[in-house]
């Protein structure tokens, strides 16, 4: 999928929805619970996928999930049971990115 910033993506296996905050100029697979996410206003809206029991780490409302190396960041707008993944890699909650410092 080539998602655009601001676009909503919906899970096909649970209630999860996210907003795309960052996305590179690239075509990447985005999944929730192992099943492709879809545009809830697009032709695939309402389709139902099959959940992978191994990808059920869940999401939290209002948290950002990011793969900085890929340039992807998603903001959870409805939580669900599935794990968010892009290009086959689970997305962790975005952590602080302070400037490296040393005493």
């Amino acid at each position, binding site marked *: 999928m080539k998602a655009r910033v601001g676009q909503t993506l919906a899970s096909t296996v649970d209630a999860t929805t996210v907003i795309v905050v960052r996305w590179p100029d690239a075509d990447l697979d985005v999944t929730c619970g192992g099943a492709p996410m879809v545009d809830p206003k697009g032709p695939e809206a309402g389709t139902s996928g099959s959940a992978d029991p191994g990808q059920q780490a869940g999401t939290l409302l209002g948290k950002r999930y990011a793969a900085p190396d890929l340039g992807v960041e998603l903001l959870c707008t409805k939580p669900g049971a599935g794990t968010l993944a892009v290009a086959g890699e689970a997305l962790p909650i975005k952590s602080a990115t*302070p400037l490296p410092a040393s005493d």
Partner: protein
Amino acid sequence: MPGPMTGVRVLEVAQYTFVPAAGAVLADWGAEVVKIEHAERGDAQRGIVKMLGNDAYSAGSSFVPMMEGPNRGKRSVGLALDNPAARPVLEELIRRSDVFLTNYLPSARAKLGIDADDIRAINPDIVYVRGSGFGARGPEADKGGYDSTAFWARGGSADGVTLPGADRLSRMPSGAYGDSMGGMTIAGGIAAALYRRATTGETSIVDVSLLGVGAWATQSNVNLALMAGGPIPAKVRPKHGSVSNPLSGSYRTSDDRWIELTMLQPGKYWPEFCALAGRPELVTNERFDTTAKIMANAAEASELVAEIIAGETFAHWCEVLSRGAGQWAAVQDAWEVGQDPSLRANGLIVPVTDAEGNGRELVTNPVQFDEAPPSLTRAPQFAEHTDDVLRELGLTDDELIALKIAGAAT
């Protein structure tokens, strides 16, 4: 009994240790502290990977002592203060707070609209607290500082602990050494300001600088120099004992540890020390049989004490000296301090549970109320409580998400 600051709300816009440590002390004392962190980078302290050469982080654990010390007991909110969309949230937090605590430089405060006038316009009763490197006035008011610069170097401590002729300057004995004392100082100032506000209705601006804390710490020497009208001469203590007291100084044991003796009245304690050391003949030795002679012959007596202490182990001397009335101490490392029986008997090392559920321990602030140690909660993860705090302010989930999409909150 709840802590004395129960019900006090503190809003902290601060980084590193000095000013956040004040928030931690207030949290230990029962205050509710909300810490605002940069929406993307978090507290810059989270970026420190090494402290005095030691790793700050441990793989696989969220427990970072350098964050826990100055931030335990707080809630963290990720807010982009430079984003206008975040302003209403900040203003609501200001409106409901008793204390605003910051160490942002004046130029940054002005840019972000969090100077005293800005904050007072929203909440006229708030106690406005500024921690700085070099003070709120003067040529360095907008200059940043750390404890190693403002407190340690400028405040006279580095010079005071470096031996004449040393090939290197002595550094602070522990990370955040001046910051930790400075934070405690700020907390005391806030307590006094809250007392005035409660009794007279007048609020305060409270200023504490690392330089000021440094000069307060070295005031014994600074005040002497001020009276002398110039630098006080550097005094090199004898290797053993002091110029006029063999029982005031540090002595090395047979296993290369140190014992510190500070028995300021040598005449009173010489007989006791000699008896404990198994050398009673030294009490009646004609060189040491009066107080005046012990003081006059301190150099000789000190050599004898050094030989005596060097003849036995650290454990031996700890046991033997503990039987006397004279003042002495084992020179302890950081691990031993954490196990110190008197610290533990007084509840000054306390348990805390980390984010993974593991039991940990932290040093608590040194002020104890009502003979009970504070009960500590771990420091927050970055922006851990944004959602909770914003919902408390009455934001709906849709408003919360909108702030996050706008990059105003994390």
